[in-house]
């Protein structure tokens, strides 16, 4: 654990810390991937303007 700076999870072990951060990052990747990359038509259509505006590959 980083002692120099204030940590968000001050009392967790370093292994649990890595696990929790990795889990949060994975959740974020899943959310972005689902909205931006899903091949399901309804998802694509709902987020259509967003996909174009974020320069995700579309169509």
């Amino acid at each position, binding site marked *: 654990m980083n002692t120099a700076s204030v940590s*968000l999870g001050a009392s967790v072990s370093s292994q649990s810390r890595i696990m929790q951060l990795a889990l*949060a990052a994975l959740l*974020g990747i899943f959310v972005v991937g689902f909205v931006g990359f899903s091949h399901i038509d309804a998802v694509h259509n709902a987020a259509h303007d*967003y996909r174009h505006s974020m*320069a995700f*590959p*579309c169509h």
Partner: protein
Amino acid sequence: MNLFRNVVFIAAIAGLVAGIALACMQAYATVPLILKAEVYEKAGGGHHHDHAAATATNNNAMSSAAPADNAMSSAAPAPTEAAAPAEDEGWAPADGLERFAFNVVANIVTGIGFALILVAVSEFAGGIGNWRQGVFWGLAGFAVFTLAPGLGLPPELPAMPAAELLPRQIWWISTVAATAVGLGLIAFRKSLTLAILAVVLIVAPHVVGAPQPDSFETAIPEGLHHQFVVAVTLTDLVFWLVLGAVVGVVRGRFTGTATSLRGSFA
């Protein structure tokens, strides 16, 4: 799961703020250009394009959802009277308010998603301490998620020619990953060898090259596309700066209370 909860909480606030800001910018800067491009798309028979823009009420959509229309220089052609018959494209939000609402939701949801990635990754490096650090993290996010993939696959308007979707998505994701690792090596490792490896990683996807269409021929005017590329790049830049800065501010308040409360909880 104390840390996980805190990360999600900070990401939710930052994603909400930055997502709403981005949706507002898009409503004025990018969506009007998309609507304009759809007019060309329908005039061209809607070939190869599989999203379901509502086929009816072309004119309504243009006038109600394009407030910044008159500010744009390129004139859109009049909508064709006989729009191409709609393919079976599944459900799509109706033009106007519903379409705008779904865009806002998409922006907020992915804003939170990007924030989760940003907060989690930055915590490994000690965390974003204040809004200024957040701005730099935001710049990195912009470089990784917009700039690098945008070099090979520039923002595209509907009806523009493009290669197969899946190879482009794979290239996009690989480029983002390689650029992120490269920037991380440069920022957090002090070895020259690793810095050189980082440059190789960042350059490699562009040497391989993004999947390109067979022909670049399109009905979309060059000027309209250029305007769109500029609008997308700038709105995304502001989004990332806001996202990073808000993470810095919220996290600062959070750790402030967390340290003082630590004694009572531990």
